[in-house]
């Protein structure tokens, strides 16, 4: 029983991390209908930038986080303005191909700059173990769960309660109507993509303080994020959280009770089952076109 609780706790912790790393992806899809295959690479940039700021330059963790968020937001805005903008309205394929090309470019360029070595973002939290009943968690992980939850909550409030969030939702429901209402849709597109990129980068840096920041993990991060988003439903906040937790717990339990080699495969198996049973995920919305 104790093993189960420990695995469950581990799973929930990892699940929260998965949820944050998938949030940017689901947002950009839900609002812009763009599937960003470079999502993992933006995460990687966040991690590597976070490492260079904290480890190499010795900056304060939270200051570095703010810088990472800002830089990634700018990168996201530029990507949207100069690439996605040119193929808007041409359907899904060009955006998929563009972001794939971008991901190839970013991964390799990052490899050239920092090499293949796994790096760590310097964390301000100690790795002290905390004992919550039969379960052991490190302080740093717990703090990170709190920060992740805070960011997820913040993003939710941004979209639901602020005027720019309203503008975003309006634009993606009906761009023409939004323009007529005075919303500068061109900026909204860029801002939304920037938000997605910033979330990816933040996740990259935060998780880089517990796991690794490495140039080559972009593909795996993207894939895991896709699993989360498909399980929970594309475009749904609650879905990203639910999907993340499910994936985290499933992996922890499988890894603990069965085998560790195929742990990654559990996510893919879940995706395949989900896409057959409920293609739109647990929380996804689908309308029969009248």
């Amino acid at each position: 029983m104790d093993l189960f609780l420990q695995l469950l706790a581990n799973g929930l912790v990892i699940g929260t991390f998965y949820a944050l790393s998938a949030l940017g992806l689901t947002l950009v899809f839900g609002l812009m209908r763009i599937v960003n295959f470079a999502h993992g690479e933006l995460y990687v940039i966040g991690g590597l930038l976070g490492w260079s700021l904290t480890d190499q330059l010795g900056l304060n963790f939270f200051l570095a986080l703010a810088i990472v968020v800002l830089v990634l937001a700018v990168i996201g805005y530029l990507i949207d303005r100069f690439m996605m903008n040119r193929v808007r309205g041409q359907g899904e394929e060009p955006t998929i191909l563009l972001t794939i090309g971008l991901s190839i470019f970013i991964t390799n360029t990052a490899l050239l700059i920092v090499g293949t070595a796994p790096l760590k973002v310097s964390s301000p939290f100690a790795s002290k173990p905390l004992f919550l009943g039969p379960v052991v968690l490190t302080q740093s992980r717990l703090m990170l769960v709190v920060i992740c939850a805070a960011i997820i909550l913040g993003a939710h409030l941004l979209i639901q309660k602020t005027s720019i969030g309203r503008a975003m939702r309006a634009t993606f429901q009906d761009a023409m109507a939004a323009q007529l209402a005075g919303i500068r849709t061109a900026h909204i597109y860029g801002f939304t993509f920037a938000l997605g990129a910033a979330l990816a980068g933040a996740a990259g840096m935060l998780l880089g303080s517990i796991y690794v920041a490495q140039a080559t993990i972009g593909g795996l991060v993207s894939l895991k994020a896709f699993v989360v988003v498909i399980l929970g439903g594309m475009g749904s906040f609650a879905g990203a959280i639910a999907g993340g937790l499910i994936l985290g717990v499933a992996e922890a339990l499988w890894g603990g009770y069965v085998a560790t080699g195929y742990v990654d495969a559990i996510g893919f198996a879940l995706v395949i089952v989900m896409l057959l049973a409920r293609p739109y995920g647990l929380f996804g919305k689908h309308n029969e076109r009248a």
Partner: protein
Amino acid sequence: MVFERNFLLAALAIALLAPLAVQGEYAMHIGVLIMFSVMLATSFNLIVGYVGELPLGHTAFLGIGAYVAALLSSKFGLAFHWTLICAAVIAAVFGLFIGAITLRLRGPFFVIVTLCFAEVLRLVANNWVDLTNGPMGISGIPKPDWAMSGDVLRQKVSFYYVGVVLAAITIYLSYRFVYSNIGRAAIAVRENRFVAQSVGIWPFYFGLVTFVLAAAISGLAGGYYAYYVSFVGPEVFGFSFMISMLIMVLAGGKGTLVGPVVGAVLVVLLEEFLRDFKDLRFSIFGLVVVAVVLFLPKGLMGFITKRHEAYKVRQARDA
């Protein structure tokens, strides 16, 4: 149709005669890579251009073909032609299974789930050590009989001509497929599902037939590759082949039979040219993909046909 046929026949003639003009081991090596790439690009193009979806996990079938050939030849001593047939057939069976599941989905969902299948296969290849030797891979694949005699140059020439034959078979089957009632049905589904259904075409079925054919060709290519390189590891399911396939079909022009051939030649030559810049290679490839999507969406062949048509219109106008 006529242009395509003439182009392809000319390409075949050039391929057959090339070793007379360009000699040497290195040239033959490039030739083998080109033939392999033509098969791969044609197979990928069948799905991208004729089903209209992007199978980012297409390396699954390449890998299956390679592993089947490697296992059958090194563990069971099966002859070359038999292992290649098995490679194609088993890849086709996997294609049937995977296609039946993935073709229910469209757009990014299709992309992701095919990627998931390829990843699962890679994990299996990496972990099922008893069968696949895990990360160490299967090495020492025995050379086929016709490649045993003579010096290295002669062996490479033999590989090259076998490659030409396989590529020719691939293109023949694809050509027949595209210009048949079945190919027309697949194209109709790609163009407009509603129209296709309203004239009695079952979208899922024709997508599946195309998918299985593409898988078989990919498996064939994988088997050929395994013999040439004499080693198969889990990386064969990985992304580097995928990038090449993408660029070949995008740059050459998807949805045409000529495009993948042109793309294959271009990409192989490009990769060799960039061999010196090994580290920058993939960065450049990423930029190439972006550039092609933004500036040359119909690929080289599409660009050429558009210019040709514009030229004809101008000619008619000035006449």
